């Protein structure tokens, strides 16, 4: 499952051809005609803001022979010309009826007798949804809205994207995306970040040297109480977060104590958060959004996409989030912590990468390939959580329920189910129900 080429080809079609995928952030294309090159599964895509200020996502593949029409990471353009035969695609709606349409073909009048249907042969375009700065896309016109797709996980994504003072949105990216190739199957990082809390031994060394920005034990600041794994069995998302509580009751230990400026900033923002959201419920967590996007809502505050390259190779793209209007001095403190923690130079992530690469390599072995993995931790211990719509939990962080939830979703996509079935609007015969604690599972 982690090394099979045929399964990988099926994943590319069934999962990456249909799911909502993170392709970038609006701060990367602030002005009309700005573009970046991004990825959706194994495809290169152009993410651009048109002259008419619309964000569009186009397959970066000429309709004539398939060459890339955009060959740089970023830039500014209202038209993309293929270097092979000169077909030109425009994103300017004063010139074409839809962004990405074929606008010019050398020899159109003479060699094609003016009969080539330009509207028919434009760049393939994806469905796009911008959400609090993040840009998502799907190839599937039938897919539900991004909000329906995310379900209860949206509240956690909000906790990463919202300003520390409680304002909706208000975050931006630090400039620069860390892109790095890891020789692992993309499912290892995806199911690591979905809520694998039992891999502490991996990070022994990072804990021993006290990466903790308060100078205390561990690699991160002390967490508020009520930290547990929550997963959405119907949607495949999951992560580690906090039991929702009234805003006034949510504990906030002091953090970044070695950096008084940052510590004071966070304390001031937390006070504002409390004031702005008084009377509301505090939702906060991190995890994986099915299939391949993971995020941390606070330490370090990052988004990451695990782009599949092949069954045994993944290209990770790490983006770093920050309050857009935070003073530079504060941004710099967080930035330093992010870089010492994450990415291939990060003292924590280095050891994760070692795991994923090694697990993939061993799965290639003759015996290793066919050997089942054990996912029994916490199996049958989960119960619905009334405070988190659609989620189950077992009251602790250490459980493999989320990995099983993710794998269940993987299977549903791989079976090629309709969106009605995927969104559980209709029942599927003989469908496997996610195993819950006997007392809550109802009479069989």
């Amino acid at each position: 499952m982690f090394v099979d080429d045929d399964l990988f080809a099926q994943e590319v079609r069934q999962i990456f051809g249909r799911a909502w995928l993170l392709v970038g952030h609006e701060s990367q294309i602030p002005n009309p005609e700005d573009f970046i090159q991004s990825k959706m599964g194994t495809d290169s895509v152009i993410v651009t803001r048109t002259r008419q200020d619309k964000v569009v996502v186009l397959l970066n593949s000429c309709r004539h022979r398939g060459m890339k029409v955009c060959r740089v990471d970023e830039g500014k353009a209202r038209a993309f010309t293929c270097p092979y035969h000169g077909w030109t695609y425009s994103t300017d709606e004063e010139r074409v009826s839809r962004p990405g349409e074929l606008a010019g073909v050398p020899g159109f009048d003479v060699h094609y007798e003016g009969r080539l249907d330009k509207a028919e042969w434009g760049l393939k375009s994806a469905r796009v949804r911008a959400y609090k700065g993040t840009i998502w896309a799907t190839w599937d016109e039938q897919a539900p809205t991004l909000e329906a797709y995310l379900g209860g996980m949206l509240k956690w994504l909000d906790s990463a994207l919202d300003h520390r003072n409680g304002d909706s949105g208000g975050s931006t990216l630090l400039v620069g995306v860390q892109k790095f190739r890891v020789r692992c199957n993309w499912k290892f990082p995806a199911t690591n970040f979905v809520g694998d809390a039992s891999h502490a031994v991996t990070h022994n060394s990072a804990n021993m040297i006290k990466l903790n920005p308060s100078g205390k034990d561990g690699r991160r600041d002390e967490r508020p109480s009520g930290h547990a794994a929550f997963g959405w069995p119907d949607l495949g998302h999951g992560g580690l977060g906090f039991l929702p509580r009234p805003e006034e009751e949510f504990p906030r230990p002091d953090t970044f104590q070695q950096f008084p400026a940052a510590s004071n900033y966070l304390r001031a923002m937390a006070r504002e958060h409390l004031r702005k959201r008084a009377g509301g419920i505090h939702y906060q967590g991190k995890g994986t959004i099915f299939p391949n996007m993971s995020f941390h809502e606070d330490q370090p505050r990052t988004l990451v996409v695990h782009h599949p390259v092949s069954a045994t190779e993944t290209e990770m793209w790490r983006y770093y989030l920050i309050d857009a209007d935070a003073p530079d001095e504060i941004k710099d403190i967080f930035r330093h912590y992010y870089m010492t923690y994450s990415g291939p130079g990060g003292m924590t992530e280095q050891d994760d990468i070692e795991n994923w690469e090694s697990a993939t390599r061993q799965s290639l072995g003759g015996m290793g390939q066919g050997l089942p993995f054990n996912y029994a931790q916490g199996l049958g211990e989960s119960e619905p959580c009334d405070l988190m719509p659609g989620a189950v939990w077992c009251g602790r962080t250490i459980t493999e329920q989320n990995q099983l939830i993710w794998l269940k979703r993987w299977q549903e996509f791989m079976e090629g189910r309709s969106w009605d079935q995927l969104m559980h609007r209709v029942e599927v015969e003989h469908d496997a129900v996610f195993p819950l604690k006997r007392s809550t599972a109802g009479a069989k």
Partner: protein
Amino acid sequence: MQDAMKAMLQLHEVSEFLYKEAELLSDRKYEEWLDTLAEDITYRMFVLRNLSGKAQPSEYLEGPLDISWFDEGKETITKRVQQIRTHQHWAEEPPSRTTRYLTNLRILETDSGAEPALVRTRCNFMVNRNRNEADDHCLYGHRIDLLARHQGTWRIRERKIYINQSTILMGNLSFIV
């Protein structure tokens, strides 16, 4: 003539220092290597973007708040050494075997009047890193170092590393570049 002699001597002295420093890393004498860094060192390896020819001057992200592969001072570099010494840093356990090549060393500028005296150098580098049974990686690029005079030798006050890879092609950067 005398100026030329002086310049040659300085180049020789600086190259001896940088070769020795590279050797300390390859020999895993990390604590000794830390002594070659000034207390206020800034050590940064920039993210490179794959841009059009016209945009090349900005291909490296060098802004003060831009994300890098590393951008830190002595405190966290020391933590990296401590992390390797825990023998539980699995990305470096078993440890990487590294060889460093420095070429094209040039002195860009000197400021003998400063206290301490300063020298800015540029060199090309290649680091080969071999790990486990069959992991073998190379990182190529150039480096601009600022060296400050210290007790008859030098200390590195600033290191800027410019690599050729826009996407890191070697999993982790757990060795000290």
